[in-house]
């Protein structure tokens, strides 16, 4: 019977545990290489501006005078170009994703 395969598939699924992730009621499954969000370590930063230059979407801004590192999370494509180029490894890629917001704006560190 040509219908049996699907009936089997449906019934087998019905009696086995769903594959669904528990999120948001449980923790998110995180893979180590996941590109979630760029994190900034203020201590080691030289404010050399290389990351901002490299950023393909101009999401980064470095203010050398005020010692500010500014990121627009709503421009960042988490490509990781800044992380790769950073001479002092002040930038890292965290696996967890950036939270949604009701306002968009920049984050200043």
């Amino acid at each position: 019977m040509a219908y049996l395969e699907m009936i089997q598939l449906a019934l087998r699924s019905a009696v086995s545990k769903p594959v669904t992730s528990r999120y948001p009621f449980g923790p998110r499954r995180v893979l180590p290489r996941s590109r979630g969000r760029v994190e900034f370590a203020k201590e080691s930063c030289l404010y050399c501006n290389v990351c901002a230059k490299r950023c393909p979407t101009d999401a980064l801004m470095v203010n050398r005078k005020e010692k500010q590192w500014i990121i627009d999370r709503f421009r960042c494509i988490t490509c990781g170009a800044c992380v790769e180029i950073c001479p002092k490894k002040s930038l890292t890629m965290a696996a967890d994703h950036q939270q949604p917001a009701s306002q968009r704006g920049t984050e200043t560190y």
Partner: protein
Amino acid sequence: MSALSKSPWVIHYDASSCNGCDIEVLACLTPGFDVERLGVVNTGNPKHADIFLVTGAVNEQCREVIRTIYDQMPEPKVVVAVGICAATGGIFRECYNVAGGIDSVIPVDVYVPGCAARPEAIIDGVVQALGVLEKKQKERAWVRN
């Protein structure tokens, strides 16, 4: 929590996205994430929807489409801009045919970052939208009385 936030029906429209966020929105519905746990139904019809998930930046041609869909949704309604293009135009910001984020056409209530926005981020966005929905419903009831 009223029934309103337990039954968010969504409509998805691809303004001018690269598909990345769109397939992630769809992925939210599938067994891996199953947002129907939250009562989410993808209606595909503005007249049934509570949450408008828009992906992609606005280009000149889809401006009116977004407006129409938004107008046809019954109150209370929430707009969630999924992905950075929908928020700011993202990587396509400088393209000649891109007018900017969704908020240049209709009011946006929740911005979901990411390129492409992860399903988890979209779920967070929807959850956040539920709060906005509740608030709008209260305002509506207040205005009516």
